[in-house]
């Protein structure tokens, strides 16, 4: 313990000592440029993990949830605007995004140990996985839905009667949020026994 302390102290002394060979200008400018490179690299790496291509590079995603998405309106529709995995599953705001990315380290764990590496294992976990997402969307008032579907700009006259009625009452009053009714819109559902409204 004592030797470790002494070893650390050596580094601390080096850090505290003024630079002998490098000028202040070199150190500040060099630090600035290195900062840009490191931050840029970090951000680029973050963006790479935020693409559909990255998500579907694992067979767990490609063969289960991504295959199911392909049937839905969020993949193929009349106007060709579509949602990719991170649009719904990763928050757009930086702090929330980093928080979600840290949570995702558990998914790396799951990948390494093959928690859902077969169809049967995936089906066995589907309810649990779905509940995580329902909970997240319920807690942030369906933020990822609302990134595109903005309530303020909904034209109820263009909606079907049933949709207009629900949206102008429960959703408008804040009593319900998107995910309360719109479960399983992009993927198939697990057994819904005990889920309110089902």
């Amino acid at each position, binding site marked *: 313990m004592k030797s470790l302390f002494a070893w650390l102290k050596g580094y601390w002394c080096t850090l505290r000592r003024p630079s002998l060979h490098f000028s202040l200008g070199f150190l500040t400018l060099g630090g600035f440029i290195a900062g840009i490179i490191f931050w840029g690299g970090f951000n680029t790496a973050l963006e790479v993990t935020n693409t559909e291509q990255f998500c579907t590079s694992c067979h767990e995603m490609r063969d289960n949830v991504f295959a199911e998405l392909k049937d839905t*309106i969020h993949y193929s529709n009349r106007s060709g605007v579509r949602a990719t995995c991170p649009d719904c599953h990763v928050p757009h705001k930086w702090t929330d995004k980093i928080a979600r990315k840290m949570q995702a380290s558990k998914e790396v764990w799951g990948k390494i140990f093959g928690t859902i590496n077969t169809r049967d294992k995936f089906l066995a976990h589907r309810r649990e996985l779905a509940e995580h997402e329902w909970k997240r969307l319920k807690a942030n008032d369906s933020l990822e839905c609302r990134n595109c579907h903005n309530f303020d700009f909904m034209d109820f006259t263009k909606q*079907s009667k*049933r949709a207009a009625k629900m949206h102008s009452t429960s959703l408008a009053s804040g009593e319900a949020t998107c995910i309360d009714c719109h479960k*399983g819109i992009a993927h*198939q*559902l*697990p*057994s819904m026994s005990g889920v309110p409204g089902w």
Partner: protein
Amino acid sequence: MSYRLLPLLLLAVFGIAVASDINYPLDAPAPDGRRPGGTLSQDLAAPKLSSTENKDIKRERNYPEQPPTIPHSIRGYHLDKNSNKCLSCHSRANSAITQAPMISITHYMDRDGQALAAVSPRRYFCNQCHVPQKDTPPLVGNSFKDIDTVLEQETSTPNRNP
């Protein structure tokens, strides 16, 4: 002389006979089924897909026992052993909240007419009987008349059996 080549020879003769008879109807008109016109070897374009009628207005039933057709779009509604989206509006408990018509009481009975607490498993898969409709001309015509029309015709025709 062996007869080994005889089948080949016969086949060749038959082939020449078929090929020379240009009136032979190899490309016969196709039966007028769902895509009328054309011949057997012709590929006709499939009719365009039309969108589901989504007016939310109940349609008339052609006969009293007809399962009512669905007057709205059901795209993306899950209906499998895990979940039933129809019942989240049309079940007994939910129809009061959503004001959607409750599914018939017969759907809460077993086949002996005994009441059940929940929807009968044999009635669970709604779109076995109930289907949405598309705004498109019928592929196959029919001359069905509903019972009111038949009765009207019967009574208005004079000199029929009493």
